[in-house]
């Protein structure tokens, strides 16, 4: 990693008329990083990506690429290339012509261009399809052509706008792995826009979670999942149970569970006293079957709902003395029966899995 970050976003604002689409985005993306912008639709992630590409002019602030301010630089002069959500494969050109589209201005000879196109197609596993017409491609193939077309120009940054959203589930999972491999191979910085938290967690080195034009949290996937900064981030990424609690210093009493002393990184940034909320992921809790001993602490509860998924079972349980239910996910194993609705049970919980949010 070089000392200056590849992309610097400094207090970027974007207005569409009165609508404030980007509200002071400040972030840096390092060279070679796989960076994701994650958020629900309308959060401004695509606007930010298009601002980096040069398709949107920002209202204030600055975007620097390789230390150079990009203000007023049109998309065709930026060292970025994009994989569009619709892939934007030119329907009137063949696969080869699509991949070679951006080479028209390069100084390569005809032979070198042909070789470059061949290599790019090999790289995405489409070496055999060069002559095919673009409209005769499947969704996955279109995406590979779009990748080859962008990567052949050896950009500093590859921007990907929801590149997997048009694929079916199986294909999406395969492509996630392939994209990661490809990124490692070419060593180019990838900036990915996605609304799929799983996709972001799987592929990214770092993720910026965005809501309403602001970055809510910027962290690596594990921190993001285990220590979400706000309830909203916690709720957007995976499932989290929220329990009302009262805090005094680092000693937190969660309703229905009990008192626990937490570590500093489990507490919110500011000091918390009094009412707060405790978050627990479903997989950090477990249902104790009869006779099973717990390694952690226990609370008694009743099962309100059972959802069977094959490999997993999801239980909604109500802790004694509580009105609301908590979700617990259990891996199904030999010898562990699925419990019925209405059964009494014990819930095992670990204070180390807790995250505290201010109210």
């Amino acid at each position, binding site marked *: 990693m070089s000392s200056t970050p590849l992309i610097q976003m400094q207090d970027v604002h974007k207005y569409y008329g009165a609508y404030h689409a980007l509200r002071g985005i400040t972030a840096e993306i390092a060279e070679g990083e796989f960076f994701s912008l994650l958020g629900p639709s309308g959060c401004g992630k695509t606007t930010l990506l298009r601002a980096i590409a040069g398709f949107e002019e920002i209202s204030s602030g600055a975007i620097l690429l390789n230390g150079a301010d990009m203000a007023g630089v049109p998309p065709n002069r930026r060292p970025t290339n994009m994989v569009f959500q*619709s892939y934007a494969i030119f329907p009137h050109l063949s696969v080869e012509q699509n991949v070679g589209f951006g080479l028209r201005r390069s100084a390569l000879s005809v032979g070198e261009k042909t070789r470059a196109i061949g290599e790019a197609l090999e790289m995405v596993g489409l070496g055999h399809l060069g002559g095919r017409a673009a409209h005769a491609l499947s969704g996955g193939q279109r995406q590979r052509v779009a990748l080859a077309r*962008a990567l052949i120009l050896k950009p500093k940054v590859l921007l990907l706008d929801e590149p997997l959203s048009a694929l079916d589930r199986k294909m999406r999972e395969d492509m996630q792995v392939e994209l990661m491999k490809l990124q490692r191979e070419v060593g180019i910085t990838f900036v990915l826009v996605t609304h799929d938290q799983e996709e972001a967690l799987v592929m990214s080195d770092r993720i910026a979670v965005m809501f309403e034009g602001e970055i809510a949290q910027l962290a690596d996937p594990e921190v993001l999942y285990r220590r979400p900064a706000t309830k909203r981030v916690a709720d957007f990424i995976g499932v989290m149970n929220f329990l009302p609690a009262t805090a005094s210093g680092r000693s937190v009493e969660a309703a229905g569970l009990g008192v626990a002393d937490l570590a500093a990184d489990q507490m919110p940034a500011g000091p918390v006293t009094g009412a707060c909320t405790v978050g627990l992921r479903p997989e950090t809790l477990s249902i104790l079957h009869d006779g099973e001993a717990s390694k952690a602490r226990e609370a008694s509860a009743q099962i309100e709902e059972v959802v069977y998924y094959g490999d997993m079972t999801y239980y909604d349980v109500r802790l004694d003395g509580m009105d609301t239910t908590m979700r617990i996910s259990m891996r199904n194993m030999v010898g562990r029966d699925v419990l019925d609705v209405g059964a009494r049970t014990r819930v095992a919980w670990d204070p180390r899995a807790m995250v505290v949010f201010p109210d």
Partner: protein
Amino acid sequence: MISPPLIYALLLLAVPLLTIILFSFWTQNFLTIDRTFTVANYAEALTDPLYRELMLRSLRIAGLVTAATVLLAFPIAYFISFHVTPEKKALWIFLITIPFWTSYLIRIFLWRVILAYDGPVNGTLLELGIIEEPLSWILYNANSVVITLAHAFAPFAILPIFVSLEKIDRSLLEAARDLGEATAMTFIRVTLPLAMPGVLAAVLIVFIPTVGDYVTPRLVGGSGGTMIANMIYVQIFDLSNRPMGATLAVLAMLTVTITLAWFILHIRFWVHLSDRVGGGVLGLALAAVAAVIDIAIVRWVFLHGPDWFGPAGSLGVLAAIMGGGAILIAWFVPKGRWGI
């Protein structure tokens, strides 16, 4: 479900069209129709320089009208599709189609007024000091026919081009920009090729009816702007030679069909040439040069062939050049874009 309209179209379109072909092989002696089969009408129509001149003029005027209409329509369609906000597009299209629905005769007649020696066009140009004397070449000749027809057929050209421009995925243009092309080259490499189906539709939809237009040449054409439809009318009503009228009508249809088939086939050739040199400006230029040469050859044979090869011989040469070219293209040039 389709049958009632189909039967209707068969009875009122197919049957009459076949009848007119039949009719063209008969002759008329004053008021009685002689129903013996003869190709005399065709022999006369094909050898008489007057008919040939009229046919060529009709094609030339229709070609000019088509070129003018499409060239003027493209920027408008582009403007509406790319620069007008989506809510206002329908209004613009509506504005453009309104004049088309107002009285055809009166519209054309008014062009006579507008283009007249003392009309508003000359008046304005004189006022502005652009011209010293009123222009006389804008009325009662082929020019006025071109202007008037370009006006009459404007929506026919704008709408198909607009539709094909609207169909272009805007992200394609962004992709071209992203891949390093500036606006102008993006237009040449992406927008224009993708709009071509609309342009071709516009060419067909303007060219075919204008070849056979009757009213415009009569009202604003003068003697130099007379077209084949006027001759058909004269044959049928003034000379009472209906079979000759029918022959000319059949020949007009045939000529239009052959011209368009030739044109479409040669577009394939021109596009192929352009692709061979990698498209772009060079490709466009090469295609344009090829087109000019192609058209010049056919035109020369059509006009001057009879002096060199005799009337029948010139038709043979024409058929050989056009047919041979067609076979060569169909055989050697791969089927290109837009299904042609």
